[in-house]
Structure formats: C-alpha cells, structure tokens
C-alpha cells in the first residue's frame, strides 16, 4: 500500500477515496480545522460572499448562453426572447445583470477591509496581489458582458473604451484593430467579447484558488492586525466561521433578492433598451456605476495618453501598495492618521464616481481634477505617513488586548473552554 494517504475517516467509502485522492482530508484541514483568529468582524465575510457570487454568475451565465445569439443582428432580440419567452429567463437575466453590481459591491468592501486592516502587508503581499489581479479580471469580464446585449450603451461604451487603447504609442492602433476584429466595433467584436466573457470567469475561478491557497499559507489577518500568538487566539473554521459566514450569506441573499425582485433596473441605463445604432450617438456615454471613478480620472486629465495612464495607474498602484506603506502597524485602529486617510479615500471615490456620471462641464471638471489629485496623493503620502505617524499601543495578543476594542470584534481575555482549544489538535 505504499504511497497511499493515511486517512482518518471512518466511513469505508470515504476512506477508500480519501486514501487515493485526499480531498476529504484537504477540505477538513482547510475548511474544518483551519485555525482562524477568533476576533473577525463581519467584514471577513466578504471574500466567501464574493466566491458565492462568482458561482452564481457562472451558473446563470451558462444558462443565459444557451439562449443568447452573439451576432450584431441577433443579440438584442435574443436577450428580449430570454426576458419574455424563456421560462424564468427574466429571473436568470436579472440575477446575472444585478449579480455584476453585487460582485463589485462585495469586492469594493472586501478591498476596503484589506486596506483598512492592513491585510496587504507582509507576509500577505502575494495574497493581496492575486486579489488586485482578480479586480482587473473582474472589470474586464464585466465590461465585456455589458457589451453583449448590444444596446446603445453597450455599443458606444465598447467604442469609447476600446478606443482608449489607441492612445498607446506605436502599437495602439494595432491593438484596437485586434480588439475590434475590423475597423469599427461590430459583429467580430461581439463574437470575441462573448467568447472571452465566457472564458474569463473560469480564469477568475483559478485565480481565486491561488488567492485561497496563499491565504491558507499565511493565515488570515484580523481586525487588530496582530499575528496569532497562540492557540487561544484562534477557533477552528468549522463550526465557528461556517456559522458566521452563513449569517452573512443570508443577509447577502436577502439584499440580492430585494434588488432582483423589487428594483432590478436600478443600476441600468435607459439607453441600453434601444438596440445599438451605429448612426446615432447617445446624448451621454457612461459606463456602469462601478467603473465611474476610473472614468472620471480618465476624463479629468487633459491629455489622452496621460489620462489613460492615470486611469490604469489608479488600479495598478494597488499592486505596489504593500511597499508604499512603510508603517509596521497593520490595522487602522492603531494608526490615527492612516485611519482618517482611509475615510478620505472612500469619500474621494464617491466624489469621483459622481463626477464620472456627469458630463465634464463647469464645476465637474474642477471636482474631477481635485478628486484625481487627492486619489494619487493618498498613495504618494503613504511612505511618509508610515515614517511620521505615532501608532497607538498595540495589544499584547488577540486574547489579551491592552485596550478595550472598538465596536464589534476584538475581545476580552481569558482562555477558551477546554473543548474548543483542544479541537484543532484532535485530528492533527
């Protein structure tokens, strides 16, 4: 029996499988006993929720694709057929359509959590960077998905965004032609976008896997931002975090359901209910809400190439965040200046989003420029803030904080009940 895995499972069938392909051991180790800091707040639900959202998008997307026609003449009609004739097609489409917005809400909160509690710092740099890659992939997927219904905003949005690549020196025009598959957005563009839109979610799935592997190497950060010191600081993932994630999941499903069933068109543009028309530009071309802040940055810079660079730079800068931030302290709870900067950054994103939704006229131009400068100022200031800021005293350990915790997580000292503390060891 050389080479077989020694399985701890009693059930003979499970044991037979597990000793040849130790999936059960893997699941039990990574999602059963996995020692997890006991002081998470509900912000730590959002990664799991994003994973569920990804699965929902894939499930609804596969069924939509069964009824969708990726041609310039057929796309709009086929979407209406899904809405009107396919059994529960309206539900599939509304879940998929609003699922994209839900995804970005979850991801933005997830990123906020990571930034606020310093989860990007050593040793979690690669975990963070796979996350940024996920954000980029998600944006690309969402953008191409929005083109598929082939409404006015799909068509003109695709035209504006693909044209941006034309600003790249030398190869720009070549890239644009490659994206289009011709000399304008048209049938070939729609075909390749559909193909890629189907592909990317599975790539995202793969990157999520890397993301989770990296997470399970470093272990999770926590609201105090200090390392786990002893077993007393942790609880096994199951049943503690399976229970807590389930609460988050229910609330997420509820919010999702309220949007899908009661306000399904809240995020959509009226113009996309008009079939794409090459001859008629809409009054205003705006991307979906989740891309608006970046669109605002793009339009705030007077030069096209510089604007494109700033737009992409505003996301790419996240890749180097772990090295821009020089403070040894993770959690913003103990960083008085960084904490304020974080809230200012959120406010700035809201401002930029608002600017992006409006025509660049009058006051909006000024607001957009101020917002853009502030956005980059945040990152430029980070090294200096790290050097100058005087952090508050850190707690000794998760179980024994020196300070009363802020609302929610954290926690008074005292050892765990014996049974709980012993659990992670039982099977190890």
């Amino acid at each position: 029996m050389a080479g077989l895995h020694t399985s701890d499972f009693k059930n003979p069938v499970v044991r037979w499988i597990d000793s040849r392909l130790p999936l059960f051991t893997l699941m039990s180790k990574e999602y059963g006993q996995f020692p997890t800091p006991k002081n998470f707040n509900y912000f730590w639900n959002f990664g799991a929720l994003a994973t569920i959202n990804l699965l929902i998008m894939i499930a609804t997307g596969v069924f939509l694709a069964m009824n969708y026609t990726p041609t310039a003449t057929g796309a709009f009609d086929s979407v209406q057929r899904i809405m009107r004739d396919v059994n529960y097609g309206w539900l599939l489409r509304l879940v998929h359509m609003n699922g994209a917005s839900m995804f970005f809400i979850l991801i933005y909160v997830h990123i906020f959590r990571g930034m606020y509690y310093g989860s990007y710092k050593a040793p979690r740099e690669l975990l963070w960077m796979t996350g940024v890659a996920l954000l980029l992939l998600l944006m690309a997927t969402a953008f191409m998905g929005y083109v598929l219904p082939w409404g006015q905003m799909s068509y003109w949005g695709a035209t504006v965004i693909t044209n941006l690549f034309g600003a790249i020196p030398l190869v720009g025009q070549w890239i644009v032609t490659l994206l289009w598959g011709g000399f304008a957005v048209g049938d070939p563009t729609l075909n390749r976008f559909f193909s890629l839109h189907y592909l990317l979610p599975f790539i995202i799935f793969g990157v999520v896997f890397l993301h989770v592997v990296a997470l399970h190497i470093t272990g999770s950060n926590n609201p105090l931002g200090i390392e786990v010191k002893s077993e007393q600081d942790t609880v096994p993932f199951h049943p503690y975090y399976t229970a807590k994630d389930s609460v988050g999941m229910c609330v997420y499903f509820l919010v999702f359901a309220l949007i899908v069933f009661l306000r399904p068109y809240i995020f959509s543009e009226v113009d996309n209910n008009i079939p794409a028309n090459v001859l008629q530009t809409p009054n205003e071309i705006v991307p979906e809400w989740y891309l608006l802040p970046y669109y605002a940055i793009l339009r705030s810079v007077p030069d096209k190439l510089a604007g494109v660079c700033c737009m992409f730079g505003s996301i790419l800068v996240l890749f180097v965040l772990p090295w821009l931030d020089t403070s040894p302290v993770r959690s913003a709870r103990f960083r008085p200046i960084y904490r304020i900067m974080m809230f200012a950054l959120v406010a700035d994103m809201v401002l930029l989003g608002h600017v992006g939704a409006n025509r660049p006229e009058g006051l909006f131009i000024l607001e957009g420029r101020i917002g853009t400068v502030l956005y980059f100022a945040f990152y430029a200031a980070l090294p200096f803030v790290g050097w100058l800021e005087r952090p508050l005293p850190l707690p000794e350990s998760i179980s024994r904080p020196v300070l009363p915790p802020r609302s929610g997580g954290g926690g008074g000292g005292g050892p765990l009940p014996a049974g709980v503390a012993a659990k992670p060891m039982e099977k190890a």
Partner: protein
Amino acid sequence: MKGCVIVMAGALALGAGVAAPHVARAADEPALPHMKWSWQKNFGLGTIDRASAQRGFQVYNEVCSACHSMKYMAYRNLEGIGLTEAQIKAVAATKTVPGAPDDEGKPTTRPALPSDHFADPFPNDNAARAANNGALPPDQSLLLSAREGHADYIYALVGKGYVDAPAGVKVPDGLYYNTYFPGHFIHMPPPLADGSVTYADGTKASVAQEAHDVATFLYFASYPENDQRKHLGVRVAGFLVLLTGVTYAVKRRVWSGIDH
C-alpha cells in the same frame, strides 16, 4: 458589525445614487408630472392595474399601432393583462401577417394567430419614414423603458404635451410643438383626442385617461414580468428573512462558549 453595516449601506447608496438618472432635463422642459402608478404602490410591490392595461391595449390597438410597431409582443402575451384565450384569438384574427409563399413562390398573407408577434404597421423602416415626414416611429415594445421618466414621460408626452407654441416660436412644417419632447418639435401629430376610443367598460375616454391607460399598457410591454417577479419576490424575501433569523440564532449558540 456596526461599521460593517454602515459601509455596506454606503456602498449600496453609492451604487444606487451614482446610477440614478443623471441626464438632467433641459431647462426649458417642464418637470414631469409624478403620477402614482399601480406598480409603484405598496412600497413598489404593486402589480399592473389590469383594467387600465386592457384599456391601454385598446388605445394602442386602435390609435398608436397605425404608426408604431411592437415587435417583441405576441398576441398570446396579452394573457398577462388578463385577456382570455378567446379574446386573444379574436384580436389576432383581425390582424394580417405575412404567410408562407404560395405554390408559385409569391408572398401571401394570412390572419394572425395568438402565437404571432404583433403585426407591423409598415413593411419596412423606409415605408414608415416615408409616411411620417422622414421620422421613424420607434418600436413600442421597449419604448417606455428606454426613456428617462418612464411612464410619467409617456403620459406627459401624449397626454399633456401638445399645447400651442409660445409666441414667437415658429414650428417648422410637418412638425408639432410638444412641451415635454426634448427640443419641443416632434414629428408625431397629437395622437389622442377626447373620445379617440370608446371604452367597453364605460370609462370616460378623456385625453388624460387615454394617456394614463396607454402608459400602463406600455409599462406592461416593457416589463411583462412585473407581476410574476413581485409575487415571487415577496415569497423569496419572506423565506430569506426567516432563514436569516434562524441562522443568526444558530450562530449565537455556536459562539456562546467563546470569549471573543
């Protein structure tokens, strides 16, 4: 937990706020009248007022359909506003649609069936333009959902918008003045008049009433899933509220032994 809820609410509000209609109406267009539509009642849980939608179909059928197509609607879809099978058959039978070519390959026509989509008023877009001074009457299947203001706009445009042009404004030949139409000059002649239709249920057919009813029908045409969606939504949301409560109770129990 509190912070988390606040941030989530913030993210939602950001999404909703930024996505809200931001195409401001031009300064010289009057604000739209805000009507209380049946589907907006009960915190947005309202269903479509079927009597009004049926009258609205009559207005569409007898007036608007002379110029506007509604290609995504089939006669069978009229079940959604409460027409019986027999009524639908009867309505369809009065329409003519292209049939299969005959033995010699010549195009034919035949009476429509409930499974047919609404008959087009014109054989093609050019014919529609030629009959309307060069302007194409837009397809009405999604017209309401494709205009800022939705039902309020439709109601205002055909029910209240046609007034005398202000002194000094010269309305070009073949165009009409409408306060609610962007730019004010519209190719559509006033489609409604008092008594344009005779309602079977005895409702008085004033212009305002007709406009209200046709807007209700156009809402149905744009969002035929409205009633089913809301019926299902109430049940799904109710179930999830219960599930959330139970799950939270379980979580509290699981965590009760932990000092955290």
